[in-house]
């Protein structure tokens, strides 16, 4: 795991780094530290990361813009901050966890688990997904998303009005952020459960889900039985 710490107080950065090493052990590939998000963000393309530990003063417009820019990235974001009154906002924007300061090693370990384990879920309820569009960041309301389609390192979000938006996160990372109403029906599809009208078994062990819009999406063989049962 590659971790970037953005923290302007060196002692706290040391603490985060020390904890990361102790918790992840050999699973930790690299850990870097920057005192400002701006200077760290510039280098993200050359050296990608999996997790951002971000200390951010979320008060004001600047703070929220920085947060949006950060959660639009391919990595998960964990906010480590004393501004606990901003935790709900942060979760709405799609951070995977919010670690209030002061913090213990156990609390940070929980955040790291949420950010890395396969079936882990965000500790809060995201309301938006931030997507990068032509150099700026746009927020998309999760309520508008019908399904997400994986495309390698990216995911494509399909909205109720038919628009498609590209998100930098993988489908796995999105799944961790999206609320429980989304089901993984296929390794490449994450669909809003309420948008599914019916399931069909086609010839040749092909399975499909019909959405309310009439669109049909493939369903993974292993998922079909479970979904069938869920649909009743």
């Amino acid at each position, binding site marked *: 795991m590659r971790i970037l710490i953005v923290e*302007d*107080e*060196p*002692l*706290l950065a*040391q*603490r985060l780094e020390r904890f990361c090493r102790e918790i992840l052990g050999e699973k930790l590939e690299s850990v870097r530290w920057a*005192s*400002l998000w*701006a200077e760290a963000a510039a280098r993200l393309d050359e050296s990608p990361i999996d997790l951002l530990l971000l200390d951010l*003063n979320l008060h*004001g417009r*600047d703070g929220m813009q920085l947060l949006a820019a950060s959660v639009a990235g391919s990595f998960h974001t964990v906010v480590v901050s*004393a*501004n*606990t*009154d901003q935790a709900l906002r942060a979760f709405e924007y799609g951070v995977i966890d919010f670690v*209030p*300061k*002061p*913090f*213990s090693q156990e609390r940070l370990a929980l955040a790291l688990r949420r950010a890395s384990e396969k079936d882990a879920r965000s500790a809060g309820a995201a309301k938006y997904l931030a997507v990068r569009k032509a150099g700026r960041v746009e927020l998309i309301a999760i309520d508008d998303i019908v399904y997400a389609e994986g495309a390698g390192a990216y995911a494509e979000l399909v909205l109720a009005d038919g628009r498609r938006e590209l998100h930098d996160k993988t489908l796995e990372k999105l799944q961790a952020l999206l609320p429980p109403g989304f089901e993984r029906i296929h390794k490449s599809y994450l669909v809003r459960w309420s948008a599914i009208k019916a399931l069909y078994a086609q010839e040749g062990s092909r399975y499909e889900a019909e959405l309310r819009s009439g669109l049909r999406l493939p369903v993974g063989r292993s998922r079909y039985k479970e979904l069938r049962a869920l649909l009743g």
Partner: protein
Amino acid sequence: MLRRVLPLLVWLLAVPLPAAQPGPPSAPEIRPPAEPVLRFRVGDDPRWADPAHDDSAWQIIAPRELPARRGIYWVRFRVRSQPRPPDGLLFKVVASYDLHWDGRLIGRNGRVGASPDDESPGFVDTLFQLPPDLLGPGEHTVALRMSSWHTGFPGPTYGLLLARGNFRAMLVERSRTALLSVMAVGAALVAAVVFGLMWLLAGRRRSLLVCSALFAVVALLQALQAWRWLYEYPYDWHYPRLLVITVLATALAVLLPVFLLVHFELRRRRAWVFAPLAGMLVHAWFSTPFYNGISLYACAVGFAVALGVATAAVARRRRGAAVAAAGLAVSLVALIAAPRDFLDQAFFLSAGPALLGLLVTVVLELREERRAARRMELTAARLETELLKKNIQPHFLLNTLATIQEVIEQEPRTAVTLIDALAAEFRILSRVAGKTLVPLGEELDLCRAHLRVMSLRKGAVCELAARGIDAAAPIPPALFHTLVENGLTHLAPRGGRIEFDLRADRLAVGVRYTLTARGERQAAAAEPREGTGLRYVRARLEESFTGAWSLAGVPVPEGWETMIEIHSPAAVAPLREAAPPAWPQPQPQPASP
């Protein structure tokens, strides 16, 4: 009835000013149908008391034209009795005399004398009761044997005033007159004391002091008026008393415009007011030897000039100026329309509107002040809350605690230092939180305590140097502390240091503080927006130095510079602090076992 009740109402509102006069009786009295013809002769002859004596050759004089004379002289006149003749005879005259009614001596006032030593002054007002057997219908002859050595009056003539009426009714009337006067003294005195105390206890507003003096003068005038009714005095006291009354009336004429000038803050116009006022008052004093004339003139001048000032105040939209001007205008019209009544006891009807207008003006101003004070109180309370919130906010404290957690695990001794510094900062904060102004020295202690905490947190040397400052100069609490906080937020260490430099420069009036923060300006913070910190600084400056300050911040090559100018002498006057710091300056201490 109305004429009796209205004055009483106005009196209760504390607006009396009687001009004293030797003239007409103040209380309404039953007057004879026509004023008798007075005949006057110098000399002394007991036969002149005889009604049958032929006085046709005597000099005829008007009642107000009694010539002031040395020696003994006689005055004779005839009165006609109605079917039911009144048995009371009230004389108001500044002389000693023997009263003869139809040739019979029925009373003496003082002792008439041929020389000043022989004479013993009688009372000014004397009420005689006529024996019933002398009250027959028809004409009666009154003869007065008089002397007036002790008048001391500069005028060429004086008055002899006579009122006839029912003896008992006149006695009652006299006591009523005194009652009204005493009430007026009380009311005016209360107003004077109240305004005096307000001046003393509520901020020393000069207009309150002038207002108090004004009502004190009114009270004195009224007391001198009441003196005549309450305590009879020998006639040689009459003119000294009138002189004092005229001086007081003149003082009133000066105080009225002065009050308005001060109250409406038109002091720059005072030359325009005082020159004509002084000129006219001097003219008043030399225009006539009659004190009541001077009093009347002075009052008219005072009202007119005050009306001018009030009108100027109306033009400048001063609060309550219209009320004051209206009151003065009404009184001035009353004075011009009925000058004689003005100096009568109807005075309070005439002068009442003017004084009432002034009272309303003062009360309006005080109400506004109360409101302003209330607003200030609320602001102060809000600022105190803001200061505490700003510093006890979770952000600062929790971040510091997070640092402490780490330091405890790495080097426990540093943790103790950090906790000490944090405790020091909060001790100073709790000490200054409730105050509007604190000595600059204490404010710098607060900044340095904060910088000690931040040095440890940031892993950089954060320091504050001060030059040319006066440690006793007053400054709103947490002012520089807030600016230092802002600097730490927007600057990153340069060469491991963030330095603050506070310089004080004396201005012609007041002081300029320049706080330079040296560090690496962060791109995002190049143009910091007006945050809660700066709003707090502005609110605090406005609270203590209303309208006399400025705040400016500019980026400079080495970091950020904030300039605060306070154009007020209060900003450089040493703050008297009651208590020395309750705690010793905390220093890094060895950990206790």
